[in-house]
């Protein structure tokens, strides 16, 4: 069973719909006692970094549960969009430290003429190394992005996809059981569907 974590940040309906479409067993859950049964977790997120970290830290039992799932049980966890940024150590968007499960930082986009922020729309994410998440995604795959901050890994091996927008950033990252993706697979047609299929097959 895949549990999508409902901690009050964003839009979970479409994520659930896509997992259902690919035949995965999925549920949206906010209660840490229920989340404790999860075999896979999706950490979504739309909104600001501090608001999201605040909710994770302040929801009773949630932070401890996530730490346990990620670092003791080591079940697959996928952070999506802001959820990916939360996996990093810090963000230029906020003051609070991130979960720190990835040696990475979340930075502002560099200012560059012709590149409006947020980075909103369809762009390419190129696989840069082998990962179970990028199996059969295809070379012409395009994905839907909406974000104003972007992730940069400190350990190059932990980047699995890269995207160019006013500079290159890491659009998908992985370390052991921890995965993050900047684009919205649930809004990216068959390209995103393949990506989520890969996650549900882990």
């Amino acid at each position, binding site marked *: 069973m895949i549990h999508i974590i409902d901690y009050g940040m*964003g*839009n979970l*309906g*479409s994520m659930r*719909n*896509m997992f259902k*479409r690919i035949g995965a067993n999925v549920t949206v859950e906010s209660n840490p006692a229920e989340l404790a049964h999860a075999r896979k977790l999706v950490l979504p997120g*739309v*909104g*600001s970094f501090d608001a999201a970290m605040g909710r994770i830290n302040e929801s009773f039992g949630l932070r401890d549960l996530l730490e346990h799932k990620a670092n003791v049980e080591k079940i697959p966890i996928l952070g999506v969009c802001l959820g990916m940024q939360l996996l990093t150590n810090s963000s230029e968007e906020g003051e609070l430290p991130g979960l720190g499960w990835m040696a990475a930082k979340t930075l502002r986009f560099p200012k560059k003429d*012709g590149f*409006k922020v*947020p*980075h*909103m*729309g*369809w*762009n390419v994410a190129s696989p840069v190394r082998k990962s179970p998440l990028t199996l059969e995604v295809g070379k012409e795959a*395009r994905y*839907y992005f*909406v974000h*104003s901050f972007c992730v940069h890994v400190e350990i190059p091996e932990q980047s699995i996809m890269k995207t160019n*927008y006013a500079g290159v950033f890491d659009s998908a990252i992985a370390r052991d059981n921890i995965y993050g993706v900047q684009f*919205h697979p*649930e*809004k*990216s*047609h*068959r390209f*995103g*569907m393949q990506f989520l299929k890969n996650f549900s097959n882990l």
Partner: protein
Amino acid sequence: MLRTRIIPTLLLRNESLVKTVKFGKFTYVGDPANTVRIFNELEVDELLFLDILASRKKHGPNLKVLREVADECFMPLGYGGGIKTFEDAKAVFDIGFEKVAVNFSSFENTTLINDLSKHFGSQAVIASIDVRTTLFGRKKVYTLGGKKNTRKDPIIWAKEAEEMGVGEILLTSIENEGTWNGFDYDLVKSVTDAVSIPVVAHGGAGNTEHIHKVVTNSNASAVALGSMVVFQKKGMGVLVNFPNIKINE
């Protein structure tokens, strides 16, 4: 560079999709769920639904229809029409839409845009600006489906909306809508010059050149298409389609 987004824009009237000309003269296009299924297969960039009766009839979003739509769609979805409160918008987001468009409501409830963009992010909030040229040749913002003149200048309203925190502007020319004769290029240019957020040009697209022109000359970030994606050709029958247009690739 990003692909320029080409956004089929579908008009909901009660439970059906229609297409209008200059905000009037309805032609039945089809059932929302079926039409959306086709757009899903065509892998369109994004879809926008506008409920053209919601504001006038003072009913909120038709959540039943929107839910059917969201269940079928694996692309970004926007909705506009009758969003008057934070709760209206939240219900639409909860279903799986990621953007809401507001216009009339924001005059009545001045904190709405601000609340929405704080909570859901500015990328989730579109200011929908419908513009008509008055008898004196001035361009004014209209609401209630083109019925009510707010006497507001579109450029000023666009700037205000940007300050309030919207992430995008949907700029519709009422005179050009449904005509296939091209966009109001000057109007689009005047607004893209005034704001730094993306402007989606809407109203009048009839061919690929129109789209190129509004992107290249008027700096539109994205284009909303109505007639072109639901009719075979001007004056011809319904055919849900998506033109193969490549800009910035």
